[in-house]
């Protein structure tokens, strides 16, 4: 089956790599790569457009799960949802950004492993609840947060949701990924049980939890150092650099 592969469509991959490297707008890069790949596979332009159109109709559910919750979140944020999330977490004395996210990681990974993947997500949980709570906990511990600290906490909150989801759902036996592997291997004449594939994912899932949890644990220390640096820097960072520049 490897006798003669047509290597021309790899130009589409080249467009992607070059486009992202040159920091061209991703929409242009991706549309460009789609058209180039189609042309290299000797598809007529009209077929390429039809392929794009069919693909759009098939994948309409992707933006839908982001767009629909915005109507709820927008309204609640206008009336103080984020402020309330921060106030609520400040009542939990032992809370810190890292500890809160470790708890979320555990909940997200375990619930995903049971197939309960919709109990999270960036639009549904991270933006309205998890990120503001993590910021609130850090604010409580460090007094004030620089923009850099806020962005760091938010990025780690999003990363935690991804890690919990990916490495949890793949040990759930009825997950599409397990089905895909099983179907593919069966098609290649390799006998394997879906349950065995799911079970052999558990060691990696544990490693994923440990690695992300250690990083979240260290996030608190990182924030503490940054808070110390911003306070001992006598006010705004811009003043600090200005003073520094004068010294030399």
């Amino acid at each position, binding site marked *: 089956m490897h006798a003669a592969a047509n290597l021309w469509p790899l130009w589409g991959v080249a467009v992607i790599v070059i486009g992202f490297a040159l920091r061209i707008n991703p929409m242009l890069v*991706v549309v460009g790569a789609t058209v180039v790949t189609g042309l290299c596979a000797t598809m007529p332009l009209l077929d390429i457009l039809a392929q794009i159109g069919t693909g759009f109709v098939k994948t309409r559910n992707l933006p839908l799960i982001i767009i629909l919750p915005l109507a709820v979140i927008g309204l609640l944020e206008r009336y103080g949802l984020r402020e309330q999330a921060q106030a609520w977490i400040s009542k939990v004395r032992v809370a810190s950004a890292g500890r809160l996210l470790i708890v979320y990681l555990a909940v997200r990974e375990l619930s995903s492993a049971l197939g309960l993947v919709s109990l999270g997500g960036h639009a549904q949980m991270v933006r309205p609840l998890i990120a503001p709570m993590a910021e609130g906990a850090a604010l409580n511990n460090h007094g004030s947060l620089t923009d850099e600290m806020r962005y760091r906490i938010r990025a780690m909150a999003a990363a935690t949701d991804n890690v919990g989801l990916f490495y949890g759902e793949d040990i759930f036996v009825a997950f599409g990924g397990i089905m895909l592997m099983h179907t593919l291997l069966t098609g290649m004449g390799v006998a394997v049980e879906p349950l065995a594939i799911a079970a052999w994912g558990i060691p990696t899932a544990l490693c994923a939890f440990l690695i992300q949890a250690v990083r979240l644990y260290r996030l608190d220390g990182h924030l503490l150092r940054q808070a110390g640096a911003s306070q001992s820097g006598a006010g705004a960072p811009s003043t600090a650099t200005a003073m520094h520049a004068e010294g030399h």
Partner: protein
Amino acid sequence: MIVHSEYFYWMVGCILAITGVMILTDKTHSRRISSSAFWFIIAALFLFSDWLPPALTGACVVVAALIAGFGGLGRGKPNNLPEQQRQASAMRLGNRLFVPALIVPVGTLIGSIALPKLKIGGMYFLDPANPTLTALGVSVIVAVLVACWLTRGTVLESMRQSRHLTESLGWTLLLPQMLAILGLMFGRAGVGDAAAWLTHTYVNTDYKLVAILVYTVGAAVVTMILGGAFAAFPVMMMAVGLPVLIHVYHGNPAVIAAIGMFSGYSGTLMTPMAAHFNIVPAALLDLPDRYGVIRAQVMTALPLLAANVVLLYVLM
């Protein structure tokens, strides 16, 4: 069935059309015409693409992508309440504010698990082909109504807020879909076969550790290029997994499959091509750096990839 999943595509179409009208009538907007044109096109596609010829739909998608790609999208000024009023409102409403926020994930969860078999008057309540999506849609409608009742806000206010959030996400909302379309095109044009052929032909896999490294790191790299581990897994299985790890080294196929897919996930954590997980949340969380989430994930993804190499070597 009573609730079809198509209803929610139409609902999104209506929401985006309202967004377009709001932008068109917003005199302070920096790119009024091109922005509203973009959202009108997307709205029309959500409303009518089931009936349009595929080539016309495709042409509309390309036009929308070009508008976005050449900087045609601007942002209006959000009309937030002042900080003090928000604090006062949070004090007044307290933890009740969490209720509508939690209705969305919890309602989706319950709906997708408990309700697919629910029948009312002999008809399925939710679309049995897509219970998660329909459960999400129903939960959102309930949550908006509860939120309006609780905050004394209006559905119109909720549309205004939704418009500003939609605009702040901008084209990143459509990027996952464009990448999925590219993935379909890659599949049709045989990009995976070509990559498998290259790996198989040019990489020496006479040593077990080298073979394992090619399989795991290859899965991560191909995932980074294709944007998803599901697309990369068959490539690496055909190129290295089946011919070398299973046939030459007689490894346990279940271990090889499970760890191969997880090695791909390390790639997912590091690529802008997985926009749904990496680029959209950066926009949702107002990060100034489009790649901020990826940067936060690299130091999880790389140690995990190394762990996978060790685990596969030991367990296989």
